[in-house]
């Protein structure tokens, strides 16, 4: 192993000594036991008395006018609850950023699978039967089905020009840089176009909600979700209720990856509308896999054009980037996905002149939404592929070109943010290459590929990249997240936050942070179930913010408990866990509950200007270099990842095994996005909405992913931690496609690189060569 690397340990969970540090130790996952015994309760495991089952009648077309809704007169509707847009008590709207998406289509449909009618019945099979006896009569309207059609705007489906959001980012003066270079023979201009496809989050637990709703009692929903307060924010105006009459409870959630960031508001609304109409009977609305895949959000498809000015010896002078995302039929989160993609579009490189012209456009596809990485994987795929193209044009190696231009302390990013972190990206790149035995493999692959008649060709590729932790720009200041900590009379500490455990380890990380802050055993800390009636709004569980941003609030809230006890003279400066427990007992005896709160405040120096897109885009970044070794079968055109090395700086690693788990899982999703996960669109509808024909990696498709950390503590994160969740999604696709080009000598600039796409690319390249 390269010097200075910390390999993610494969060791056993260590029980921290009482009062000793748990940060850095692989303590057992808080809710792990319930997950290995079958006792963990997911939403579909819950049955309530008198419960009805819901179903959704959806648009069969991409765009049209709803002329009629026909209920088969031969079918017995007497016990079926029916809800349409007319039944929405207050506003027919899923509140998020812009107010454009109805909870039920009213008069028009704007994408396939848009919800039009809701049904509920005590028998889940009967309601499914009922769904098949509703016929929507829709007069089709011309639809916009891809980025080109949206930009052409011959058919306008959103605003004046189909543009959901436009961002112009400028550093230096790109036009002047290109003009000044005209006629110089020591510079080169390299152009490229890169495309990425939609990707399904494919959490293994499909989406679902249970709701109880009445005008008198208000609305309560229990469900599979990432962001309790997003759902809350959507339900309040939909039902016209005071905030305290809407309650959102997260059940054990079987994966999210962004897919349960905004869409659960829609399902919660549907379940609650049915319950409201049914006089408050509980309604369970669970999607089956096919419905989940065709109706819910996916990663935005993208197209990126690059034009780069570079000196012949490899100094990047200017990058002109045009970045377009397909947002689907409604605005949802596209503006912020575009923002993150834009900020990461120039990569972690020192470039004096950068222009990024970005647009998210509307199409009549189901709205695309949050998915791990949130726009950055798309623009990073483009820039990391493009750098290999630039290197090839210059006759340099990909690693030499990167080494020449990687950001270091004191440089400025594309938004003009000065890098203050002690990063050494060239060293990290060297570590990743050494770990992957780059030089040795290069020689061996050259020999291997040169064997006459060789049908399996091998190649190596890498990507260097960064990912901002937390909300972009001033987002965290607007959110103003709050965390509470409570101490019981027994001295146990409960963390109260809306941040959800969705598999990534929130419960464990928060417990480690709180127990270490107070010097208590890890076992003494519990994390409350996210329930808007009981926990404050600590913001959504997204954007790699839970550990770094909310974790810091957990640390401060926990310390607040100690400070209160000390201020009252109940606890000394130095104390044992037992003394802490005694102090809590004394507090409870005379003063009641012991609670402390913390609220987010931007660290000094984090200043962002939304109007000019200049400033500190993020408080800190994760930095990484990933290396992929691939073998391409030139008979079947299948690509196999034979080795994968992921080296990253995510600040202090709070729980090495959990952190490695985040990286491994993200890399696996990245490999799927790069090679096999293709969404096939048929008139705006996903044609392969099943696990049988939408192909995610199995255990047999992946190598043992190798993960290494190079921690550089971040002063404003808890114990020095930064974010980790999204970073690993950014690097795999470009590293793999760069490796494919290394193996075949053929550039492939669109993903997924399915066997069909690869075969076409090779045949085209052969034809072009004559």
């Amino acid at each position, binding site marked *: 192993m390269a010097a200075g690397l910390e390999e993610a340990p494969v060791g056993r969970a260590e029980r921290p000594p009482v009062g000793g540090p748990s940060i850095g130790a692989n303590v057992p*996952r808080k809710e792990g036991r319930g997950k290995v015994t*079958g006792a963990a309760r997911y939403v579909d495991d819950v049955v309530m008395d008198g419960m009805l089952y819901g179903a959704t009648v959806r648009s069969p077309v991409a765009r049209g006018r709803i002329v009629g809704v026909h209920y088969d007169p031969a079918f017995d509707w007497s016990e079926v609850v029916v809800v349409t847009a007319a039944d929405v008590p207050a506003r027919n709207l899923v509140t998020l950023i812009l107010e454009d998406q109805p909870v039920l289509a009213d008069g028009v449909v704007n994408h396939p699978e848009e919800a039009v009618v809701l049904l509920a019945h005590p028998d889940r099979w009967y309601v499914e039967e009922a769904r098949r006896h509703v016929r929507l009569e829709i007069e089709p309207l011309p639809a916009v089905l891809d980025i080109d059609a949206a930009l052409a705007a011959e058919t306008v489906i959103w605003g004046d020009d189909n543009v959901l959001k436009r961002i112009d980012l400028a550093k230096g003066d790109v036009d002047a840089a290109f003009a000044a270079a005209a006629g110089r023979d020591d510079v080169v201009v390299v152009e490229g176009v890169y495309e990425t496809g939609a990707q399904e989050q494919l*959490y293994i637990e499909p989406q679902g909600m249970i709701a109880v709703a009445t005008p008198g009692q208000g609305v309560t929903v229990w469900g599979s979700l990432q962001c309790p307060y997003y759902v809350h924010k959507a339900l309040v105006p939909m039902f016209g209720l005071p905030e305290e009459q809407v309650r959102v409870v997260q059940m054990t959630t079987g994966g999210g990856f962004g897919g349960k960031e905004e869409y659960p508001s829609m399902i919660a609304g549907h379940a609650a509308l049915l319950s409201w109409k049914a006089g408050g009977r509980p309604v369970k609305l669970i999607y089956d896999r096919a419905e989940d895949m065709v109706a819910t959000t996916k990663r935005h498809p993208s197209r990126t054009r690059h034009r780069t000015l570079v000196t012949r010896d490899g100094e990047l002078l200017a990058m002109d980037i045009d970045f377009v995302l397909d947002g689907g039929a409604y605005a949802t989160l596209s503006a912020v996905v575009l923002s993150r993609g834009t900020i990461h579009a120039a990569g972690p490189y020192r470039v004096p002149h950068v222009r990024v012209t970005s647009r998210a456009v509307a199409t009549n596809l189901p709205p695309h939404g949050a998915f791990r990485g949130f726009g950055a994987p798309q623009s990073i795929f483009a820039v990391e592929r493009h750098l290999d193209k630039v290197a090839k044009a210059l006759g340099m190696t990909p690693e030499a070109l990167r080494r020449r231009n990687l950001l270091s302390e004191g440089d400025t990013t594309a938004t003009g943010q000065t890098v203050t972190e002690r990063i050494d990206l060239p060293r990290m790149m060297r570590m990743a290459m050494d770990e992957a035995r780059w030089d040795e493999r290069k020689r061996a692959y050259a020999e291997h590929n040169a064997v006459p008649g060789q049908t399996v060709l091998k190649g190596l590729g890498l990507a260097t990249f960064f990912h901002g932790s937390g909300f972009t720009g001033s987002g965290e200041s607007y959110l103003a997240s709050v965390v509470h900590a409570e101490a019981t009379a027994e001295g146990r500490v409960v963390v109260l936050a809306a941040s959800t455990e969705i598999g990534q380890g929130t419960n464990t990380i928060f417990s480690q942070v709180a127990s270490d802050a107070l010097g208590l055993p890890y076992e003494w800390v519990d994390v409350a179930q996210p329930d808007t009636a009981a926990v404050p709004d600590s913001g959504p569980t997204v954007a790699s913010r839970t550990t770094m941003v909310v974790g810091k609030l957990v640390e401060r809230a926990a310390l607040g408990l100690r400070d209160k006890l000390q201020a009252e003279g109940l606890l000394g400066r130095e104390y044992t866990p037992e003394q802490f427990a005694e102090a809590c007992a004394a507090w409870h005896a005379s003063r009641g509950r012991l609670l402390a709160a913390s609220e987010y405040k931007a660290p000094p120096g984090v200043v962002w200007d939304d109007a000019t897109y200049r400033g500190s885009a993020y408080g800190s970044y994760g930095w990484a270099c990933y290396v992929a070794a691939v073998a391409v079968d030139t008979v079947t055109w299948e690509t196999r990842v034979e080795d994968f090395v992921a080296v990253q700086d995510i600040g202090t690693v709070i729980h090495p095994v959990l952190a*490695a788990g985040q990286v491994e899982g993200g890399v696996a999703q990245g490999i799927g996005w790069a090679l096999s996960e293709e969404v096939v669109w048929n008139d705006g509808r996903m044609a392969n909405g099943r*696990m049988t024909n939408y192909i995610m990696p199995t255990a047999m498709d992946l190598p043992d992913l190798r993960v290494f950390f190079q921690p550089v503590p971040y002063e404003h994160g808890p114990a020095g931690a930064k974010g980790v969740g999204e970073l690993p999604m950014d690097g795999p696709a470009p590293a793999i496609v760069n490796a494919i080009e290394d193996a075949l000598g053929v550039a492939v600039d669109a993903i997924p690189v399915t066997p069909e796409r690869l075969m076409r690319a090779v045949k085209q390249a052969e034809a072009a060569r004559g």
Partner: protein
Amino acid sequence: MGERTEVRFEVNGREVAVKTWPMGRLLDVLRTEVGLTGTKEGCGEGECGACSVLVDGVLVNACLVPVVQVAGCSVQTVEGLAEDAAVEPLRQAFVRANGAQCGICTPGMLMATVALLREEARPSDARIREALGGNLCRCTGYVRIVQAVREAAAEMAGARADAEVEG
């Protein structure tokens, strides 16, 4: 779906009799009539393996099995495993190694692992990956699941060897 009929079989060592549609899915009968919700539905078409159970010791996807087909059979679910002390090292290994993240695939993974380890006490990593090839996990990239199985297999094989020596 035809008339409801009574189907008798054994679940986790206990006799059950349910009145249901003969072609109803074993998965639904387990989750609703029997009330054991540890067996999960991920896809309903035999792709993801979240509903894996053992029928007379054979690993099956409960979403693909009509309940009438298990009449007179012995079905084992994750709740049954939880009562089996010999499987405790496997559960501990999944928690320790972070083989269970969101947990939705975990019951199926545990059932597939038990089926594997009954066949082969000390499987190679390649064999583990093959045996779990029908169980999809979106969280882990499988690294820690394979590790958990490897560690549990070593521990369980060691325990069996000790028991034989003592016996």
